[in-house]
């Protein structure tokens, strides 16, 4: 997986300046399902330590096209996300490229 992540080049996308604390792989339980309204899709997951993470996805139509539609992943499901963590260690937020649920992989920013 480290190899796969290393293959993601800098994304042609703005708004990542606050997420330069490095790549993370984060597993947790969905507490707020995917919403595709707004500038970006979003969901919330709770990790094993009880921290609720705000997960920022790609813009709505792009996330939808990646198959990650609203309601596809139920609340309570276990998911793993790959992306970049907010640089502020007190802010549990990550902008993610990939969401994995069971055997389903949603690449909202596919590797090039």
């Amino acid at each position, binding site marked *: 997986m480290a190899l796969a992540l290393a293959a993601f080049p800098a994304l042609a996308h*703005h*708004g990542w*300046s*606050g997420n330069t604390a490095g790549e993370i792989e984060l597993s947790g339980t969905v507490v707020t399902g995917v*919403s*595709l*309204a*707004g*500038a970006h899709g979003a969901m919330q997951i709770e990790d094993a330590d009880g921290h609720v993470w705000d997960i920022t996805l790609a*813009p*709505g*139509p792009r996330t*939808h096209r990646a198959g990650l539609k609203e309601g596809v992943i139920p609340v309570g499901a276990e998911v793993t996300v790959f992306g970049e963590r907010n640089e502020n260690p007190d802010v549990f937020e990550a902008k993610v490229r990939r969401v994995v649920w069971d055997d389903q992989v949603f690449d909202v920013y596919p590797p090039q």
Partner: protein
Amino acid sequence: MAWLEGSALADFLRGLGIWTYGLLNLGHILGIGSLFGAVLILDLKLMGVWRSIPAAILIRPTVPLAAAGFLLAAASGIMMLSFNTTEYHGNPFIYAKFPIIVVGLANVAVIQRLGAWRRAADGAPAEAGDRTMLAIFGALSLLIWTAVITCGRLIGYW
């Protein structure tokens, strides 16, 4: 700003589908285009460009176009903001943008009360000092609206 995020307007917009935000963004761009395009022509005229064209001829189309563009940009901007208002806490560009918009509107109010402006808009003969006065306010206007657009564009990069 949490009240806006929790408003009925925000709830309504979120329920309209995945393209809503992008289309509001389009409306914002069209509003900015109309506002700034009109402002650019008018302000350059006030600053002394196109001497052969009477000011009144350019004032007539540019002022209502700028006003309509501003209203479209403001309405679409507030709607975009309502989706996730609290996300902008601490964003210096948005904190700078709104006061500068107020200065821009104040500048409009002041300029339209100037004798020099009234004479130019009516096509009446200019008096001594009119040209300098209008040039100063035109340059100020161009500076202000450029600053507003710059702040707006940079919000998403913070």
